[in-house]
C-alpha cells in the first residue's frame, strides 16, 4: 500500500538498541557518578573504617535523610515546580510534633497525625497559590521559606520562651509509634553478624553497628513508591506531562492544577517524615532544623538527572544524588579532609550534572 512506501522513503528512525535505551534513562549520570565516588573513596579512605558495617550504615543514614526529602523534590521538579519551603517545613513539622507532646502532654500518635495534617495543608496552600496565580513556584515557595521559618520561631518562642524543645525522650519510652521513625531494624541480624565475627564488635560483644536505622527503610520505601508511581501509573504519566508541557497536558484532559497541588503536598509530607525521623531520634526539636535542606534536595534531584525545566527525571536518580551527597560528606569526614572542600565539590558536581542533563535532553529530543 502507498502508506508503507512513505515510511521507507523517509528512512524514518535511527536504530534504537539497548544501549540507546539505557542512555536514555535519566539516572544514568548519577549511577555512573556514584560508582566513581565509591571507587575514589575505596582507594582514598582505605583503612579508615568508612567501609566497615558501622561506616557504611553511617553514610547510608546521612544519604537516607537527604534522600527522603530529595525524592519529594524530584517528583515535584519532574512535575515542573520547585519547593523552596521544604527546609522550613522540616523545622516547622519538628515543633508541630514536639510542642504539643512536651508542653501539653498530647499522646505521640496525635502529634504525628497533627504534623501530617499540617504538612498536607501547607502543601495544598503552596499548590493552590502556584496554580491559581500562575506565579513561578520558585517565588511562591521562597515566600513560604520565610513564613514557615518565622512561624516556627515565633510560635516556639511565644509558647516556651526558648528556641529548642527538649525532653521528648521520656515520651518516646515504650511508645508504639516511635520505633516507626526513630528505631533500628535488623538488630538480630547485626548481632549475629557480630557473633560470627564478620563485623566489628565492642568489648562487650555487641556489634558497633547495632542495627539498620529505619530512616534507610523510609528512604528505600519512598524511592520505590515514587518510581512505581512515575513509571507505572496514570498519575506518573500526568506528572511528566505537567512538567513537560502544562498547556498541552491540560488540552489532553490532564488535571494539571490537581496534579501539581498533589505534588506539593507530597513534598511537604516527605519533609515531615524527615522531621519525625530527626526529632524522634534526637529526642528534641529545634527551630533551625532543616535549613538549606531545600537546596540540598534540589541539588540531589538535579544530580539525579531531573531537568530544572521539568518533565524529565527519576526518583531513583534523586536517590543516587542523595547517595553521592551522603557518601562524599562522610568520606570527607573519614579521610580527614577539611570539610570546606565538601561545598566546593557540591557546587562543581551540580554544574557538571546540569551540563550533562542538558546534553542528555538534547539527545533525547533531537529533531531531524
Amino acid at each position, binding site marked *: 500500500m502507498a502508506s508503507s512506501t512513505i515510511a*521507507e522513503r*523517509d528512512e524514518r*528512525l535511527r536504530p534504537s538498541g539497548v544501549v540507546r535505551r539505557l542512555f536514555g534513562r535519566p539516572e544514568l549520570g548519577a549511577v555512573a557518578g556514584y560508582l566513581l565516588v565509591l571507587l575514589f573513596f575505596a582507594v582514598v579512605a582505605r583503612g579508615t573504617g568508612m567501609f566497615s558495617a558501622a561506616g557504611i550504615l553511617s553514610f547510608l543514614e546521612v544519604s537516607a535523610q537527604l534522600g527522603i526529602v530529595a525524592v519529594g523534590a524530584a517528583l515535584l521538579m519532574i512535575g515542573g515546580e520547585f519547593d523552596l519551603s521544604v527546609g522550613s517545613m522540616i523545622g516547622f513539622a519538628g515543633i508541630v510534633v514536639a510542642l504539643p507532646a512536651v508542653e501539653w502532654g498530647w499522646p505521640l500518635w496525635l502529634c504525628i497525625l497533627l504534623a501530617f495534617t499540617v504538612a498536607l495543608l501547607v502543601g495544598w496552600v503552596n499548590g493552590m497559590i502556584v496554580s491559581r496565580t500562575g506565579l513561578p513556584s520558585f517565588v511562591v515557595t521562597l515566600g513560604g521559606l520565610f513564613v514557615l521559618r518565622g512561624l516556627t520561631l515565633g510560635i516556639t518562642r511565644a509558647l516556651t520562651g526558648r528556641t529548642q524543645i527538649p525532653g521528648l525522650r521520656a515520651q518516646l519510652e515504650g511508645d508504639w509509634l516511635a520505633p516507626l521513625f526513630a528505631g533500628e531494624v535488623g538488630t538480630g541480624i547485626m548481632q549475629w553478624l557480630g557473633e560470627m565475627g564478620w563485623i566489628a564488635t565492642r568489648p562487650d560483644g555487641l556489634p558497633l553497628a547495632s542495627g539498620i536505622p529505619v530512616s534507610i527503610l523510609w528512604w528505600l520505601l519512598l524511592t520505590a513508591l515514587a518510581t512505581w508511581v512515575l513509571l*507505572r501509573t496514570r498519575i506518573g504519566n500526568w506528572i*511528566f506531562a505537567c512538567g*513537560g508541557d502544562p498547556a498541552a497536558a491540560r488540552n489532553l484532559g490532564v488535571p494539571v492544577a490537581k496534579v501539581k497541588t498533589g505534588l506539593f503536598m507530597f513534598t511537604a509530607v516527605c519533609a515531615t517524615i524527615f522531621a519525625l525521623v530527626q526529632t524522634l531520634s534526637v529526642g528534641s526539636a529545634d527551630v533551625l532544623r532543616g535549613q538549606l535542606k531545600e537546596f540540598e534536595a534540589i541539588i540531589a534531584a538535579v544530580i539525579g538527572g531531573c531537568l530544572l525545566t521539568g518533565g524529565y527525571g527519576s526518583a531513583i536518580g534523586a536517590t543516587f544524588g542523595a547517595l553521592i551527597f551522603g557518601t562524599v560528606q562522610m568520606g570527607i569526614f573519614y579521610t580527614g579532609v577539611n570539610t570546606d572542600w565538601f561545598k566546593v565539590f557540591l557546587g562543581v558536581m551540580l554544574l557538571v550534572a546540569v551540563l550533562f542533563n542538558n546534553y542528555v535532553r538534547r539527545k*533525547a*529530543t533531537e*529533531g*531531524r
Partner: protein
Amino acid sequence: MMRSRPPLVEVENLSKRFGTVVALSGVSMRVFPGEVHCLLGDNGAGKSTLIKILSGVHRPSAGRILLDGQEVVFHSPRDALDRGIATVYQDLAMIPLMSIARNFFMGREHVVTRGRGLLARLDMRRANAIAREELARIGIDVRDPAQAVGTLSGGERQCVAIARAVYFGARVLILDEPTSALGVKQASVVLRYIAQARARNLGVIFITHNVHHAWAVGNVFTVLNRGRTLGTFGKDEITREQLLTMMAGGRELEELSAELEEFARADAARAIDVAAEEKEVAATLRREVAFGSGFSDDGRRP
C-alpha cells in the same frame, strides 16, 4: 448530498472577546459527518479561537454549541473529548520528552490500565504495542514506541496526534494548521490522513491558510475575516481563486491580481508544485478509496 443529513456539530452566533479584543463575533457554522470542513482566514482571523471554544478550552462570550442537535456547554477540554470532539492543536498537543506510547495514551490511560485501586498500573507493553500498530496503520514505522516524541518529525507528530484522536473514537476531528509547518512531502502525508478520517465518516474541521491544502481534501469551506464569517461554500460553488480573494480580505486588489496571475502562470506554464502537491494528494485519495480507507472497520476501537 451528505449535507442533507443532520449536522454533527453546529455553532450558532458564537462570539468571543478577550478583554477589549473581539476575536469572534456572530459566527455560525455546521459540520456534517464525512466532510472535511475547511476553516480559512488570515492570521488573527479568529480560527484558533473558534476551535478552542469548540474543544472546551475557551467559553464563548455569546452564542451556543449544538452537538447532534442538543445544546452543550463544555467546561474543560476533557468535556469536549468525552463527547467525541478531539482537537490537534497548532501548538502541538504532544509532550516532546515523553515517549510516543505515553503521549498516545495521555489522558486516556484507563484503556491500558490493569488492576484496580492501589494496584492499578499501566500496561506499558500493551500501550507500546497498540501505539506501534496504530501508527503502522498510517504508514509510520515506529520501531520503538518508547522513544521520545521529540525525535519524530513535525509531520509524524501531527500524524500521531491524529491517530490518537481517531483511535479514541473521535467523531469530530479538529486540526489547527496541521500542515503549516511542514514540507510538501510531509504535508501530503497529513493530508492523506485527513482524507482517511473523512472516509471513516468523521466530521473534520481543517484549519489552514494554505488554499491548496484546503482544496486538496476539503469539500466545504468557511472563510473567516476579522472574527466574522464571509460565508460557507461547497466545493462546487466556489473556485480556488475566489477563496483566496476572500481570505485576503482587505488587501489591495492589484496586489491580489498579481498573485492570481502568478497562480495562472504556475498552473499553466510550469504545472508543477502547487498543482503537483494537489495531484499527489488527489491520486493517493483515489487509491485510498480503491483500496479501502486504511482503517479497519472490525469494531476494534474502544
